[in-house]
């Protein structure tokens, strides 16, 4: 039984079958990649996992609990964090403040009215945030507005913000899309480090095969809304169906 | 039944004014992404174009009539418009009588130039600024425009009549088989309704069937891509702003005989037309028109005695109440697109 179980999920948009009978099981403490050509339904699947979309049929269970119909913040409180294709960070806030917010969220839950306390006095939170920034090598930039960081650093910060909540499952949506090679490698290294150092399950949706094969332990290939194969990276590499799917994409 | 038909007629008429202003607002918002609080002022300036033309036609030479006296007991100065002098009293009188329809021609170049000047001189610098700044600067502009009008024309309404043939009303009910006097409707309001329909149809046709319109629509959907295609979309948007200003101005010109223009009529319409735009859905032209007519008709129904006796004061709040209900049931208004003005 995996930490995340997707069973018989179907989703239609008008006449388009976006997802058809998707079954997926992500085992605990593994890195599981979901790949597939454009329009294969990767984003739709991801949106079903984090509550943004509700599938027409089927179930999505996280640690035995359904995530369907829950609000994004509830899903996050269950232990799922999400990294977006373009880094979603608090651009108007400083790097340190960015890092403090998930730690507050972890401590205080979805809402707490701490209107008259001073955030400067939250030493414990600040310490944790600073430690995290140190891990990410961002401590020098902690008083900078996060909007003015480089794209690679924004990505590091976003991943760090997710990790600060010590989630059980980290969902990454094309984490290196639009990045320079060096930034991509940095991100790969960071994710490897996370995988090695933490008890965490990572599900990653990715286009870049270099990233996928450097990280993944299991790979699911989606094509036209349905899983084509699921196997280890080694087996996927030479799989004829996968080649076909990707070649089909090139032909189109 | 007759009462309902009557109120639908009234509502369509009110609705056409809302729809015309909302259409212009949406054109500006959809193409340029600017929230234009000065749009009501453009409507008002349109109405004052009609007033101005009427005044120009009435520029007179003075003769002194010794046989009569003015209020101070001095000999009376009699004014005769030059136009009557030149064309004879009959023809001249007819020209003055038709000053409102003639003001349509008069107002178009004025409104388009005002639109160009506004866009090039001010609005252009606010494309990248937050919506709050756009609201503030156009609101400031609206105040300035209406104060300028007030300075020259005073605060009181100025009567601007429709041509003689369109004054009065006809019995619409008799045509439908109701009793006489059941459904009476003024001619000019029918003219206004037809005029609004033509303008709305014209704007849609323009956007739908011309290359210019196609490019603008593409620009509304995705500005960056269109610019990548090497099309100078900015210039077209400037022209769109001029057209939107002209639409608002024409709505104002034709509205002048319905209610005598005054300097704050733009502000009176502004809030309502914003409600209309939002209820229709930000950025949706059909939404703006639909919402304009819908709210106009509902407002008319709410003012019926039968309904007021059940819900006292409902006519005071109906538009806002409907707006709230629609926005709560349809998050982006009737036909709004996702992600527009939501943050």
């Amino acid at each position, binding site marked *: 039984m995996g930490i995340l179980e997707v069973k018989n999920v179907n989703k239609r948009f008008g006449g388009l079958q976006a997802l058809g009978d998707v079954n997926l099981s992500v085992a605990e403490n593994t890195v599981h990649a979901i790949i597939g050509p454009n329009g294969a339904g990767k984003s739709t699947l991801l949106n079903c996992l984090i509550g943004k979309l509700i599938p027409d049929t089927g179930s999505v269970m996280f640690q035995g609990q359904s995530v369907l119909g829950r*609000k*994004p913040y509830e899903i*996050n409180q269950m232990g799922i964090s999400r990294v977006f294709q373009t880094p*979603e*960070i*608090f*651009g*108007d806030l400083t790097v340190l*403040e960015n890092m*403090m917010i998930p730690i*507050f*969220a972890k401590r*205080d*839950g*979805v*809402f707490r*009215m*701490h*209107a*008259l*306390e*001073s*955030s400067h006095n*939250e030493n414990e939170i600040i310490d944790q945030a600073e430690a995290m920034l140190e891990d990410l090598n961002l401590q020098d930039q902690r008083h900078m507005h996060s909007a003015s960081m480089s794209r690679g650093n924004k990505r590091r910060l976003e991943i760090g*913000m997710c990790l600060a*909540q010590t989630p059980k499952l980290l969902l990454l949506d094309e984490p290196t899309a639009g990045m320079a090679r060096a930034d991509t490698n940095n991100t790969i290294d960071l994710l490897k480090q996370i995988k090695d150092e933490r008890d965490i399950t990572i599900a990653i949706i990715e286009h870049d095969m270099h990233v996928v094969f450097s990280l993944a332990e299991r790979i699911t290939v989606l094509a036209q809304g349905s899983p084509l194969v699921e196997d280890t990276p080694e087996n996927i590499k030479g799989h004829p169906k996968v080649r076909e799917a990707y070649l089909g994409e090139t032909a189109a | 039944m007759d009462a309902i038909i009557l109120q639908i007629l009234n509502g369509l008429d009110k609705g056409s004014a809302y729809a015309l202003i909302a259409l212009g607002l949406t054109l500006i918002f959809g193409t340029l992404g600017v*929230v234009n609080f000065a749009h009501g002022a453009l409507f008002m300036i349109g109405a004052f174009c009609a007033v101005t033309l009427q005044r120009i036609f009435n520029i007179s030479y003075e003769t002194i009539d010794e046989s009569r006296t003015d209020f101070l007991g001095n000999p009376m100065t009699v004014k005769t418009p030059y136009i009557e002098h030149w064309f004879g009293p009959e023809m001249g009188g007819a020209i003055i009588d038709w000053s409102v329809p003639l003001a349509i021609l008069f107002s178009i170049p004025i409104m388009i130039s005002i639109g160009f000047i506004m866009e090039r001189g001010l609005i252009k*610098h606010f494309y990248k600024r937050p*919506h*709050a*700044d756009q*609201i*503030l*600067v156009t*609101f400031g*502009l*609206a*105040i300035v425009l209406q*104060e*300028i009008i007030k*300075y020259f024309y005073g605060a009181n309404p100025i009567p601007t009549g429709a041509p003689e043939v369109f004054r009065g009303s006809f019995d619409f009910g008799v045509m439908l088989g109701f009793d006489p006097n059941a459904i009476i409707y003024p001619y000019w309001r029918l003219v206004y309704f037809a005029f609004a329909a033509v303008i709305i149809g014209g704007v849609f046709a323009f956007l739908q069937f011309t290359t210019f319109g196609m490019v603008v629509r593409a620009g509304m959907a995705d500005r960056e891509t269109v610019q990548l295609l090497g099309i100078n979309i900015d210039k077209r948007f400037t022209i769109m702003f001029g057209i939107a200003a002209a639409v608002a101005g024409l709505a104002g010109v034709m509205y002048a005989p319905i209610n005598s223009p005054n300097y704050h009529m733009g502000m009176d319409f502004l809030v309502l037309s*914003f*409600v209309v735009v*939002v*209820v229709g859905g*930000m950025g949706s032209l059909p939404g703006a028109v639909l919402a304009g007519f819908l709210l106009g008709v509902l407002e008319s129904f709410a003012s019926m005695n039968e309904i007021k006796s059940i819900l*006292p*004061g409902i006519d*005071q*709040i109906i538009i806002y*109440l409907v*707006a*709230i209900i629609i*926005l*709560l049931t349809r*998050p982006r*208004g009737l036909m709004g697109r996702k992600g527009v*003005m*939501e*943050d």
Partner: protein
Amino acid sequence: MLGLNKRDFSLLLIVAILALCAPFLLNPFPADSAMAQFNAGYPDLMQRFVIFGIFAIGFNILFGLTGYLSFGHAAFLGVGSYSAVWMFKLLSMNVIPAILLSVVVAGLFSLLIGFISLRRSGIYFSILTLAFAQMSFNLAYSVLTPITNGETGLQLTLDDPRILGVSRTEDGSIPVTNFFGLEMRDTYEMIVGPWSFQFNNGYYLCAVLMLLSFYIAIRIFRSPFGMMLRAIKSNNTRMTYTGLNARPYALAAFVISGMYAGLAGGLLASMDPLAGAERMQWTASGEVVLMTILGGAGTLIGPVLGAGFIKYFENIFSKINDSVLHSWFSFMPDGLENLLVTLVHPFVGKGWHLTLGLLFMLVVIFLPGGLVEGGQRIARLFRRKKPDDAKKSTQSTPAE
């Protein structure tokens, strides 16, 4: 100090000193001079400065921090005023219960409206708040007249059934609002040479409450809660995917700012026991938006500056008439005097709206951050001068 860091504390201190010395600072011109027209140090206007300052500070907690632009905040101010006047009519002329009730009622009202309106964001939220406020105004003006006294505004009368206190004083007039016996309208006069300064009880009560409001606003800005509100404005998506529910945060901010508006409304009624329906009109809501943006949204001091700016215009510029203009320019030759009067005339007196509109445009065009940015630019100008001088001297040395 007081849980504030040094910078915030010195800001609070400066505001406190300005507020307490306002009677001096706002009356810089001798009472008999021509410039006395520009003096703003009389009780009514000073009260308005701080009361609308409170209103704008509260509005800024919502708009400046969360970015939610409410176009209906005047409704809470109006509701606060009505509650306060009713308290005067029914309970006591002491301002404390009236102010408390107005804050509570405005808080409840904003809870209701906020709960519904915050289901939408962006302009849809703005229009929802606008719709609620306009409904409140239209109803208060018409069918709710038994509660609001409609057009005239709710006033005290000689036969109010006041539980604690008398309906009328011995000399047959309506009793005066007071703070445990200290009458709100009492004023000290202080004469220094040709200057005169007025110290009004009501003003000082308002000023103290404004300082308290300002202090609380600073605390909120610097609190984790404030950080959450800024996070909503900055990136709502990340906020929810961080396990935080943005809606209760925004609602809390909405209610707090509604209570600030209620406090302002209650104070307005305490200074002058009348509550007019126009206080709830959209133009009044728009005014607080203008104050906040004009001063600098999201800054601490900006809204107070913006409020002062607009109220100053409304009360000082509207009173400059042609005969005042003539008296200013009377030292000039007749022709020049008349020319100047003609030139200035459209912008003052009945033309004060025109000047205000022009100034809005100028401020927004040239100072996107509002008056605060203007202040910062001036400060930077002075600060930059010194290093520049220093640089020049060091550069010139090697050339010798």
